[in-house]
């Protein structure tokens, strides 16, 4: 081939190559904007809405002892926080039922709850007079029992608990002892049963469930500032952020770790004092656990062990091809801070959606095996 011929080939080849390059690059990258990178917001402090919520809940003025002196002005408090246990080794986990119900996770859980078309919920509403989706504000799980707060003005206490032995316990409070319960059915009949829990009611705002009347009375006494327990409640107002928050006794947490992590559970019991939890469900589900202890070195070592355990779990998930779990554990980290450390864990909402997809299927289909 002569020089002119070669030039034609080079030029033709160049044009063809540029065209192929443009096509390849266009196909490879496309012209669609990439989706934003996943970002998880970990609950780390009170935000504006949390402060507003806390402010609105300061409705309860604790009664003070009258004497001849000038009474100092008493600030209104959140009655639920006042009712929480005091002292180390206690557990109180608050679930913001109303906030959770209106979160993406709450919507998913509601789908599961309403698979029967809401029949059970309607039945419960008809029997109790309480609509959990509207009237329930918060639910607290403590080592003594359960505290529910909200608007219980329409609750049918008399019909539900009327047959039990009950007594007044301070202003606005009533305690019902364990006993028989009769429930009027929609068809006109009555269903009788027995409830082994004592129940306390307070100003149509709070329901306290305990194993016995004394436990219920203790909770009600704490609210009124009576009771033998001293010190501040487990949670103060500045810790009321997230859709779920609270303090977990180390023993309780160690039990949750299960037999596979027995060594870690023991170290946790030996070193840590308490664990404060915060869960945010406003987008992806993000959890922060603030683990506090006394010895800086031991806490740092515990943080490293925990970080190692999470890393091993992630590697195991990767090795077993469980990419979903591996991706979840990508967000797991431990942030050491002197005598405490923060453990951060997150679950993308999409993963929960996938797990709860069966809830959107018609009733009758069974949930997948765990």
């Amino acid at each position: 081939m002569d020089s002119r011929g070669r030039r034609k080939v080079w030029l033709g080849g160049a044009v063809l190559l540029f065209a192929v390059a443009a096509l390849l690059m266009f196909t490879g990258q496309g012209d669609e904007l990439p989706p934003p990178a996943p970002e998880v917001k970990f609950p780390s402090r009170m935000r504006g809405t949390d402060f507003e919520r806390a402010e609105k809940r300061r409705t309860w003025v604790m009664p003070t002892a009258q004497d001849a002196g000038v009474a100092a002005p008493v600030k209104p408090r959140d009655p639920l926080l006042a009712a929480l246990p005091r002292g180390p080794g206690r557990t109180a986990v608050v679930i913001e039922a109303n906030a959770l119900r209106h979160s993406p996770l709450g919507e998913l859980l509601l789908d599961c709850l309403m698979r029967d078309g809401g029949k059970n919920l309607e039945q419960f509403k008809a029997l109790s007079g309480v609509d959990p989706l509207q009237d329930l504000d918060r639910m607290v799980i403590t080592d003594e029992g359960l505290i529910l707060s909200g608007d219980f003005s329409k609750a049918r206490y008399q019909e539900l608990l009327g047959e039990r032995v009950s007594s007044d316990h301070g202003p606005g409070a009533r305690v019902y002892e364990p006993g028989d319960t009769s429930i009027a059915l929609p068809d006109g009949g009555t269903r009788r049963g027995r409830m082994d829990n004592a129940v306390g009611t307070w100003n149509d705002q709070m329901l306290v469930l305990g194993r016995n009347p004394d436990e219920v009375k203790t909770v009600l006494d704490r609210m009124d500032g009576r009771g033998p327990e001293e010190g501040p409640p487990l949670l103060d107002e500045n810790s009321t952020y997230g859709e779920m928050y609270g303090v977990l006794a180390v023993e309780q947490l160690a039990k949750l770790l299960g037999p596979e992590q027995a060594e870690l559970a023991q170290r946790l019991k030996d070193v840590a004092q308490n664990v404060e939890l915060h869960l945010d469900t406003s987008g992806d589900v993000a959890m922060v656990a603030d683990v506090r202890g006394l010895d800086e070195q031991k806490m740092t070592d515990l943080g490293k062990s925990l970080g190692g355990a999470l890393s091993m779990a992630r590697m195991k998930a990767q090795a077993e091809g469980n990419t979903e779990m591996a991706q979840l554990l990508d967000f797991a980290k431990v942030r050491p801070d002197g005598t405490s450390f923060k453990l951060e864990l997150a679950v993308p909402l999409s993963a929960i959606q996938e797990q709860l997809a069966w809830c959107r299927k018609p009733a009758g289909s069974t949930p997948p095996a765990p």
Partner: protein
Amino acid sequence: MNPVFVIAGYVLREAASRKFILAFMVGLTLVLATVALSLKLEVVDGALAATRLFGEVVRAHITSVDVALRPIFRAAAYLVFYGGILFGIVACSDFAPGLLSPGRIEHLLALPLQRWHLLAGTFVGVMTLAVGGTVYAAGGLTLIFGVKTGYWTMGPLVAGGLACVGFAAVYAVMLTTATLVRSAALCSAAGFVLLVGGILAGFRTDVSRYLEAGFGRTSFDAVTLVLPRLSALAVGAADLASSTPLKPDSLGMLLGGVLVFGLGALAVGFWHFEGKDC
């Protein structure tokens, strides 16, 4: 021996004699040695538990070692990609003009080789230099972090390979420019313009949205459709280096596109040089 490799060897000998390139290699070695000697990483069960730099504890969280190293490998990938291309533009800009300079070109053309062999040889020589430098930098980094953490990944090396493909497209344009004007400065300028154009091409969808609809936006879309999408390739390299999942099949096409663009630019150079009266 193939005349292309003869010319490539000639270019490499030329490079070896340059103090600028030698100084770069020494500098790179010092940086790698400093990182290796000053950085202490404590790994517990696959989690990066503590980091010490020059003996000082770096406050950081405890997380899986590969997750912890992601930002480092990501930053290194960008540094190798853009830093490598920039250094290549500056350091290699006068190879081709020097080879095509009066006196030397006549001597080379007297040898039993075709004109395109000269350009192809220069291209192969420079790319050998680029690949060597990239393997040294990315490989050194992988080795250091691999030994210190026990986490071994090919990510940074593959990302370095992608950077070489990006530089190949840029250098092909520089080489073609050298056939038009024997000026190292203009070759560099052409390289810089393509680099900037390539960065814009990678973000063409974002940039295009901010342009007023009409001739300007259409022209921008048309030009950047052909330009190598270097920034997109850099993002892909960083994703690879940090083991971030990629969109399926996207990187291969992009990489192929940039490589084919480079060959196209080289073909233009061959076409022009073939008809040039030296």
